[in-house]
């Protein structure tokens, strides 16, 4: 039921969301989260580029596992998880999660849970380019707090 993709080139979130919505006419509500490279992000507000690295044997299989957990935990009509890898520039989309459900609460909780787990548990490593220099990013304490909410 879940559409899970790991992409190495840019994607169009609006087109993906339209297609997902059209594929689920029976769903009353669709919640989506779009994460994009922030303009003015990074240390000192000068992030020029962001790179996500993944490890082929682990990253997509773990994303599929996560999607399976989400579908088992909430009553959904559909779930879409798209994640970029590679180098991205400001305003480029990084991640798009969408959950379609008959009941609004299920769609919100499913998208929220999927994002918390993608952020803190997925096999991605991030570095940022600032002042022409690449710098690896350490995990954020906030991500661990977010995931702890789900027990």
């Amino acid at each position, binding site marked *: 039921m879940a559409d899970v993709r790991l992409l190495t080139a840019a994607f169009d979130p609006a087109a993906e969301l339209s297609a997902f919505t059209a594929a689920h006419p029976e769903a009353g509500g669709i919640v989506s989260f779009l994460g994009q490279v922030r303009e003015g992000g990074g240390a000192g507000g000068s992030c020029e580029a962001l790179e996500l690295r993944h490890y082929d044997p*682990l990253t997509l299989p773990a994303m599929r596992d996560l999607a399976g957990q989400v579908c088992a935990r909430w009553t959904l009509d559909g779930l879409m998880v798209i994640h970029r890898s590679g180098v991205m520039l400001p305003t480029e989309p990084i991640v798009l999660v969408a959950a379609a459900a008959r009941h609004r609460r299920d769609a919100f909780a499913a998208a929220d849970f999927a994002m918390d787990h993608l*952020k803190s548990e997925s096999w*991605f*490593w991030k570095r940022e380019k600032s002042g022409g220099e690449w710098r690896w990013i350490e*995990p954020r304490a906030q991500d661990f707090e977010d995931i702890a909410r789900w027990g």
Partner: protein
Amino acid sequence: MAVKLVFLGRLEELAGTDSASLDAADGLGWAALLAHLTEHYAPELAQTVAGVRVKVALNGVLIADKGGIVLANGDELAFLPPVSGG
């Protein structure tokens, strides 16, 4: 035998490469591997890799007790620091 080492995230910076081939006698264990890293790379690499925060995957499978690994010809061993994705 030949083994492929894969360095993810910040470990790539410490190793100076994202992957390397290692030639060694069959049955290379964890201690010998750390010794190899100490000899050929920046000292911080072996120290970091030995720490509890770095996990390893052998041929794409996470290993719970990295101290117990024994490498065979053709193996791919990936060093995985804490993730920081999405």
